[in-house]
């Protein structure tokens, strides 16, 4: 940790790893396909973005920085398209999303049944 760039790299890479782990744990805790897609989207945007930003601080000004920005641009464009296609396919394939019905007390999305 000599320079300010190293400190910035540490902070952003730690933030990126935090979001990545939270998103991946969220995939296991969420009840439905559609809610899991939401947790996965957090992995793709915040986790990947902060990690690549942390690597950008380590790379000097040059071709490595341009390649890193290309990787980030491809991830930025392709992950929402894949999420949209997946949710459309899941809805057309017959997966019922979990909804909250306020008139029926037995159907609820909350854990305590409120």
């Amino acid at each position, binding site marked *: 940790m000599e320079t300010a760039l190293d400190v910035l790299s540490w902070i952003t890479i730690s933030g990126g790893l935090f979001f*990545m782990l939270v998103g991946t744990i969220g995939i296991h805790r969420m009840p439905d396909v559609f809610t899991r897609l939401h947790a996965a989207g957090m992995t793709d945007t915040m986790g990947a973005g902060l990690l690549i930003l942390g690597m950008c601080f380590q790379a000097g000004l040059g071709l490595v920085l341009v390649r890193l920005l290309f990787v980030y641009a491809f991830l930025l464009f392709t992950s929402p398209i894949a999420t949209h296609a997946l949710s459309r396919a899941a809805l057309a394939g017959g997966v019922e999303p979990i909804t909250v019905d306020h008139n029926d007390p037995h159907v609820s999305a909350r854990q305590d049944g409120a």
Partner: protein
Amino acid sequence: MFIAATLGILVSMGLALLRALLGPTVYDRVMAVNIFGTKTVLLIAVLGFLTERPEFLDLAIVYALINFIGTIAVLKFFEYGDLGLTTRVGREAE
């Protein structure tokens, strides 16, 4: 720093694979494989920084595209039953 990033990404990849094994519907599994591919891209980039070889970033770019095309191809196969058809065959989720 990059060793910690590599370990964190590997732990996340293991958890994503667990969802690919467990997921009740097939769309859970496709989503988990897509996430696994995105983390592979990041792992390749971090390994390029770890071993001080900037050529790994070209591999990361290529694999990001391949992962996306693979996910879309698998979804098209699930929706239409074949990769060449345009009408829905009527496949339901497992």
